[in-house]
C-alpha cells in the first residue's frame, strides 16, 4: 500500500549553521536509504511557503489567491510517497525522519483494482 508522508516545518527554512547543514545531510541520507530499500515511490522538497498559490472554487468559478490553503505557522515543506506493507511500517519510516518537524502519514487510495 502507498502512503504519503508529509513533512511539516515552521516555514523558516533550514538555518545556515553547521547544525542546519548536518540536519540537511541526514535528510539526504534518509531519502537515499529509502531509495535503496526500494520503498520510495516519489518525493520532493518544496520551496518556501511564500511561493504558494491557492486556487479556490466559488460556485464553479476558479479564484486564484496568494498563499497556502490554510494560514498557519506550520506548512508542508516536502513529501515522500512510500510503499509499505501496513500503517506500522509507514510509521516506522516516518519515525526515522531527521527533519525535526511533525510528519503526517496518509494512506493513498488504491485505484489499481478499480474497474
Amino acid at each position, binding site marked *: *500500500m502507498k502512503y504519503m508522508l508529509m513533512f511539516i516545518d515552521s516555514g523558516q527554512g533550514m538555518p545556515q549553521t553547521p547544525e542546519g547543514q548536518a540536519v540537511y545531510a541526514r535528510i539526504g541520507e534518509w531519502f537515499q536509504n529509502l531509495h535503496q530499500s526500494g520503498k520510495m515511490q516519489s518525493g520532493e522538497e518544496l520551496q518556501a511557503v511564500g511561493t504558494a498559490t491557492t486556487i479556490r472554487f466559488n460556485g464553479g468559478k476558479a479564484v486564484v489567491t496568494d498563499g497556502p490553503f490554510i494560514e498557519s505557522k506550520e506548512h508542508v515543506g516536502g513529501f515522500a510517497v512510500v510503499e509499505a*506493507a*501496513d*500503517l*506500522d511500517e509507514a*510509521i516506522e519510516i516516518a519515525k526515522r525522519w531527521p527533519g525535526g518537524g511533525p510528519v503526517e502519514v*496518509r*494512506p493513498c487510495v488504491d485505484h489499481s483494482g478499480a474497474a
Partner: protein
Amino acid sequence: MRGPLGSGLEARQAVAVVFREEAPRLIGALLRQMGDFDLAEELVQDAIVEALEHWPRDGLPERPGAWLMATARRKAIDRARREARGRDKLALLMASEPAAGTGYEPEDRLRLIFTCCHPALARDAQVALTLRAVAGLTTAQIARAFLVAEPTVAQRIVRAKRKIVEARIPYRVPEGAQLRERLDEVLAVLYLMFNEGYLSSGPGAPERRDLARDAEWLVGLLVRLLPGEPEPLGLLALMRLHLARADTRFDAAGELVLLEDQDRSRWDREAIEAAGRLIQRAAAMRRPGAYQLQAAIAAVHAESPSWQETDWRQIGGLYELLLGVLDTPVVRLNRAIAVRWVAGPEAALAELDAIAADLDGYHLLHATRAVMLRALGREAEAVAEDRRALALTSNPAERALIAKRLQR
C-alpha cells in the same frame, strides 16, 4: 449436549460468561481470516443470537467456542452467497478452513486487543472499540458508562473501524522493542477505562462500577496472554487493590470517605493478599515499571493495619523509584502527601509549590495545598485553596467533601 439450562438467572449468567470468554476470540479469528472488522463482529452477533435460541433449550454445547465458530462460519457462507461483497471473503474463509480444531489461533484475542488499542486511533475510539470488540459491551452500555450519547459512541466505533481498514492498521501482535511501547498504550487504555468506572462510581451508578470490573477482566486476560510481561501483572494488582476497598469509599449517605477515615475491617483481605502475590510474581521478573510501583504503593496502604501505622518512609521510597520511570506533576503531587508524614507539612508545601504552575487547573492540587496549609495553621489561605478546588471539580462526591471541610 448437556441438559437444558432453562431460562433462569443462573442459565443466563452461564451463557454470559461463555460469551465473554469466547466472543473476542471469535471476532479475532474471523478478523484474521477475512480482514473485515465489521463483518467479523456481525457474524459473531449472529452466532450469539442463534446460541441464545438454542442453548437455554438444548443445554450448553460440550465445546461452546467451537459451536459458536461453526455457526459464525456457516453465517458467513450464507451471507457470502447473498452479497456481492462477500464473494472474495468466502474464498478467504474457505482457504482458512480449520483442519480439525476450532479455527482459533492462540494469539487471536491478543492481536485484537493490540489492534483496538493502536496508537493511530484516538483514545476515545481505543476505549470504545476495546469495550465493544474485546469485552463484548453493546454501544448502548458503553454510552451509559461514559455518560455520552449513544450515536457519539457508535460514530467513534465506525470511524475507528474505517481507519483500521483504510489506513491498513495491521492485525498483529508487535514484536521486540515495539511490544513494550505498544503494551504501554494498551495498559493506558485499560487503566483509563478502570478509572472512569472506579473514580466516578458512586451509589446509583452501577454501570460505571461495572466498567471498572470490565477493565479488570481485560487486564486479567492480558496477563494470561502475556505471562512473561510484568507490567500487566502490576496493573492487575493495582486494580484489585483499588477494588478490594471499593465498598468503603462511600458512606451510607453516599458521601466520599477518604483513605484515612475508611473502615479497614471491611477491606477484602483475601483480595489484598492475592494482589500482593501478583506484585511478587511481577517483581521476580526484575523489570520494574510504573504500574508495578503504583501497585506496591497501594499495597503498603492496603496492608497497613491503620492510617496512623502507615509506613510513609517506604511509600516515599517507592515514589522516588516511580519518579525515575514516570516523572509527572501528578506523581509529584501524590509524593508530596508522603513527604508530609516523613518531613512535615512545610516540606510538602514546598514540593507542591514546585508543581503549582503545571497543575493550576487541577482541583486536587488545591485541595492538597489546603490540607498542608491547615496543618501549618494558615487557615485563611487553606480556605482560599479549598474554594479554588471546589470551583474546579464537578464530581458531586468530591464537592460534598470539600464543602464540608469549608463549613468547619
